């Protein structure tokens, strides 16, 4: 099952393109670095406001930048799939890759909590308003998890087998 999915992912048009066009893998990686900067920069504006480093700006103003974070994430989902498709079996065999995906899942669950329980409260915040402890924890976790995702990404070559 696992092998079949990995084999299939190695045969998609994207996979063929990344393997056949010499510069495409490098472009995917480069877009990945740009995308992570967009994602993390937007999260700084949102999460540092919610953590309480500053209380300037309404909750809605901060929420506007969550959409910028999503654009960064979308860029990295696509570019990351491009890198992965180059050699799915090699990535899947890499323990740090699985750790990175696990961290992204945790960040996703944290985002789900944000969307379900925090966003309504945040939308009511006026400039100067403090956030509650729960919101501060969710915002802190968001920053922590994405920093760990970036670090894990940079450590992928350490445990990589074969060519990726």
């Amino acid at each position: 099952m696992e092998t079949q999915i990995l084999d299939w992912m190695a045969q998609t048009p994207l996979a063929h393109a990344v393997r056949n066009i010499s510069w495409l893998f490098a472009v995917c990686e480069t877009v990945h670095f740009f995308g992570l900067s967009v994602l993390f920069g937007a999260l700084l504006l949102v999460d540092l406001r919610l953590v309480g480093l500053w209380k300037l700006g309404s909750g809605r103003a901060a929420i506007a930048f969550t959409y910028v974070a999503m654009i960064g994430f979308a860029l990295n989902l696509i570019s990351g799939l491009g890198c992965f498709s180059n050699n799915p079996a090699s990535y899947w065999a890499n323990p740090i890759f699985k750790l990175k995906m696990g961290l992204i899942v945790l960040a996703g669950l944290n985002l789900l909590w944000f969307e379900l329980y925090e966003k309504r409260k945040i939308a009511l915040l006026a400039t100067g308003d403090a956030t509650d402890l729960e919101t501060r924890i969710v915002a802190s976790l968001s920053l922590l998890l994405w920093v760990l995702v970036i670090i894990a990404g940079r450590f992928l070559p350490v445990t990589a087998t074969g060519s990726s």
Partner: protein
Amino acid sequence: MNFLEGLQQTVMARWVLESDYGFYILLAGHAVGMAVVAGAMFMLAIRVLGYGKDEPMAVFDRLYPVAWWGFALNALTGTILFAANGIHLFQNLAFVLKLVMIALGGVAVFALARGVRQDQAFFEGRASASLRSKVLAVATLGLWTGAIIAGRVIGYTMTYS
């Protein structure tokens, strides 16, 4: 022995070259610092260009010190990475271009931050940014993106000497 050769003999350079994880620890720090600095600059630029008008410009005065921490992290990790391979990097066009773009990107950000503070109507949310500020915002986006691209190209072209 010249200066760049001497650098490669320093304790930190030997750590990068000879330890199992030194190189990756520095690269990871460099990536986190990049996300902080470049990310913060991207947000400043799109705000000046008109995105997220409800966000007060005064917020960026709080974000600049955070961006400086990211810059400091990258100056530190970058210097050590350079020390380990200065002889090659000094002749690597991508490396030279990256430094030039960071220098110009820094100038653009300083000019932009200064201009924004002097533009009372924009700073207080009563008007959109001046054309000068918008041009500087586009330059900021372009130069910091260029620095990221050049950084990747270093990775693809680097050899050890």
